């Protein structure tokens, strides 16, 4: 079984994000970049499938700047077999990213694409779905449990929906996007890190996919949320009621 795992380089979710004064993006100095947590969960799931099923191959793919190598190396250290980086210094919208991934899927023909449900930077939550529709593959999103049939030809996915669990199943090949509670990603061991240095990491320019400049959605402007102004202490209940009436206009 071959599993393709697309991952994205994002700022560590714990980082305090500051917006550049001109609103063109975020300040990246001193920001630690990591594998998008949902993508990491997808990778962990792929590695578990590999360990349980033996003989499976886990291929990592990312689209992003050259430094994304760091995140791919981390993924290789966790246990992925090889990696591929589509070097793109420009910003891609989800549809364009899905177009690139579609071409990679067609070339690699994996049995399963395991992807994070969304990246924590732009929170678009679209790539998996667009990829599925453009390939005309079945998909199961927001997986909290992934099980294979005995013949490994079908996959059953448990999804957390409002007020309960939903189970869906489809025949491979297909796409699964992962939710938070699917697993707890592993910590790369030192031998894993050493081995990762020797694993294949192929770089392909974005131009090879003929999508340069194709993005239809562009970030126009970023702005930090307004600062919360300090509260005010009032002396009496009457004053509070009065202010709620005149200033807050709540009553």
């Amino acid at each position, binding site marked *: 079984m071959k599993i393709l795992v697309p991952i994205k380089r994002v700022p*560590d979710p*714990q*980082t*305090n994000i500051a917006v550049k004064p001109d609103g063109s993006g975020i300040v990246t100095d*001193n920001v*630690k970049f*990591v594998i998008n947590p949902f993508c990491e969960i997808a990778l962990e799931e792929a590695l578990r499938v590999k360990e349980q099923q033996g003989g499976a191959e886990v291929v990592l793919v990312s689209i992003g700047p050259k430094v994304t190598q760091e995140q791919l190396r981390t993924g290789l250290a966790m246990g992925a077999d090889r990696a591929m980086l589509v070097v793109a210094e420009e910003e891609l919208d989800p549809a364009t990213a899905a177009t690139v991934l579609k071409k990679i899927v067609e070339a690699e023909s994996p049995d399963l694409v395991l992807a994070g449900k969304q990246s924590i930077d732009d929170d678009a939550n679209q790539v998996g779905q667009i990829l599925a529709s453009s390939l005309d593959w079945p998909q199961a999103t927001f997986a909290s449990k992934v099980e294979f049939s005995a013949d490994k030809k079908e996959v059953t996915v448990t999804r957390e929906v409002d007020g309960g669990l939903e189970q869906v199943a489809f025949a491979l090949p297909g796409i699964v996007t992962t939710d938070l509670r699917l697993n*707890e*990603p*592993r*910590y*790369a*061991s*030192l*031998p*894993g*890190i050493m081995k990762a240095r020797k694993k294949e990491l192929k770089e392909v320019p974005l131009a090879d996919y003929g999508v340069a400049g194709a993005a239809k959605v562009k970030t126009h402007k970023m702005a930090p949320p307004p600062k919360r102004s300090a509260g005010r202490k009032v002396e009496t209940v009457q004053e509070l009621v009065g202010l709620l009436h005149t200033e807050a206009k709540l009553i």
Partner: protein
Amino acid sequence: MLNTNTEDTRHILWNAPEAFHWALANPWGLFRFGVAFVLFALWGLSIVVPLLRWMKIASIGKPENRTDQPLRRLRAALLEGFGQGRVVRERSGVMHQVLFVSFLVLFIGTSLITIEEDTPLQFYYGAFYGLYKLMMDLAGVGLIVSSSWFLWRRYVQPTRALAQPAKMVSTFENESGYGFPLAMLFLIGLTGFMLEGARLATAPDTHGGLAFVGPWFERLFRAAGATPATHYVVWWVHMVIVLGFLYSMTSTKLRHIFLGPVNLFYKNLDAGYSGGARLKPIEDLENAETYGVEKIEEYSWKQLLDMAACLECGRCTLNCPTVNTQKALNPKHLVIEQREHLLAKAPSLLPQGSFLFAQLAKFGRGASNVVAAGADAGEVPGAEEAATGGDVADADVRPSRELLDGSGRDQAWLAQADMINDVATQPVIWGCTTCGWCEEGCPVGIEHIQRIVDMRRNDMLMRGAFPQDLAKSFKATENQSNPWGLAADGRANWAEGLDVQQMAELGEDERVEVLYWVGCAGSFDDRNQKTSRALVKIMQAAGVKFGILGMEEGCTGEPARRLGNEYLYFTLAQMNVETLNRYKFDKIVTQCPHCFNTIKNEYPDLGGRFEVVHTAQFIEGLLDAGRIKLGRDFMRKKLVLHDPCYLARHNNVHEETRTVLDAIPGMNREDVGQSRRRTFCCGAGGGQFWKEEEHDTARINVTRVEQILEAKPDTIAVACPFCTTMIGDATKAKGVEEEVAVKDVVELVAESLA
């Protein structure tokens, strides 16, 4: 010697066997000399051969230099070992001292007879003789009383510390334990008195001197109508037991008499009291191919000698946080089970056909079949093959001995067992808080922490098989340089509005008196930020020029290191050493004993040599110099100090903390039994703070707070941010958080500032 002295004495060797009579008439006769020589030579061999065997087994281990500072080492061996310096720390040690001194007196006393008899010296008369008899009788009583007491303690009412582990091979030594040598000692004392009594009753011209027990036995023998023949029988019985004892000394648990001082000679002389505070670095970390210890033979020779030296007293368990909460880890059991594994595996690790190999086979540890099955050095055949003895038709092949736990497993299983998972097991390896009690309590200087961390290193760096709840804090530390994973750029947020300067703002040329190393807890944890702010208040009141590193400060790597993640530690520590070396300061002040210990004792290995003091020492200095005055009298209530392990035990800093507390007006401080170097761990050390405590066992922090609450304090003073959290949580668990406050010493001082 025939003599003409008429003072009180006795005939030496009166009524001894014919051979001795003959010898007596020919004092320098060849026969007598021959007998003595053979007896002595045999005794020497009986002592030395088992010791050599242990030395040879220890030599399987990797090289390690333990011969530096020989005089300091000799001092340790003499005072702590031979002088019983460590033994008398526990109550039971007093009785051990009685036994030791009695044995020594009897040994010297008996040797004196040889001098009297075989040299021209004559002193066995009159006043000397009278006093000599008194001493010998006293020692005899001491021997009987102490050996009976030890037998009672071991077999009638055994304490928890004496409980033995499961994976022990059923050898005579393991099965008889201390029972055999103790029974021998008891019988030596008893038959000695009987011999004295029989002699007084039947020998002509024999005086009792100042003996006070012998005459009592004399009456018994007289009443029973004893004859010289009776004496003759008692003489032989006594002689056989004494020789049996002397000849078996190093073949039984009594070998600790020799290996104890030897082990103390080679003890770790490094940082702190026990040396456990400084872990050994992995040499050439970046190019090493294996990390930590996976197989027993990968330990150093000293770590293997530790296993041989363990005398199974169980003192390591007395104050051990995991043993006292019924967890899997028992340091005594671990070291014994590793020893049993070592002994079972040793034949395959030593060159075959050697003298020692023959010894091993002779000692019947079932070793022969393990080896006979065709093992190369380092390779042990599977249990099945070993158990059947392979295809070797040697009639001398012994069956593999079973383990004492009745599991049906045997020595062959133990020889090929995976040390980490089968001999030690995962919860044992990962349960240790590295609090250091086991090393503090051990009378022979066994080093437990490094041995456990070595296994963690292997699990962590080679197998990736560590408790998975640690992954989060490791990743967080990698990404944000603090185990909480909070944004690194918020490290100095706690100091907002306090007029605290960062070193980067002060510049690399500006010298400050104090570089305040806040630590992750002091920087990020809400509760401990209060302590950081309190220290700033104190330093400002004292007019101390200080700076913090802010975002340039990173986790010291201490928890990662104790958890075996040497790679992460190395990365963090290198960065910190580099940063610290860039700035100018007189000293570093830390409020976290873990940061304190690592910067003080472990950073020197990476080229970081700084003067580091803990807040307790720092504030003591400020008080001493009169730079701060404490005036507010608010401590009307009772206070108990909980000593942090890494401060009080590992670094021997406990009086400073007390001096500071006692300087607070109105202080009513009381110590609980487990304090200073005997403090009981809060449960957070050794990286335990970042993982779940072993399920279905008592909580270590609650156990600790229960000990403290016995003193009924209103305040528990702490001096470590992790203790602050653990002890605070435990008071909540006990539902006493309203009545009992938990405060850092720094906070108490700040509150009391005049």
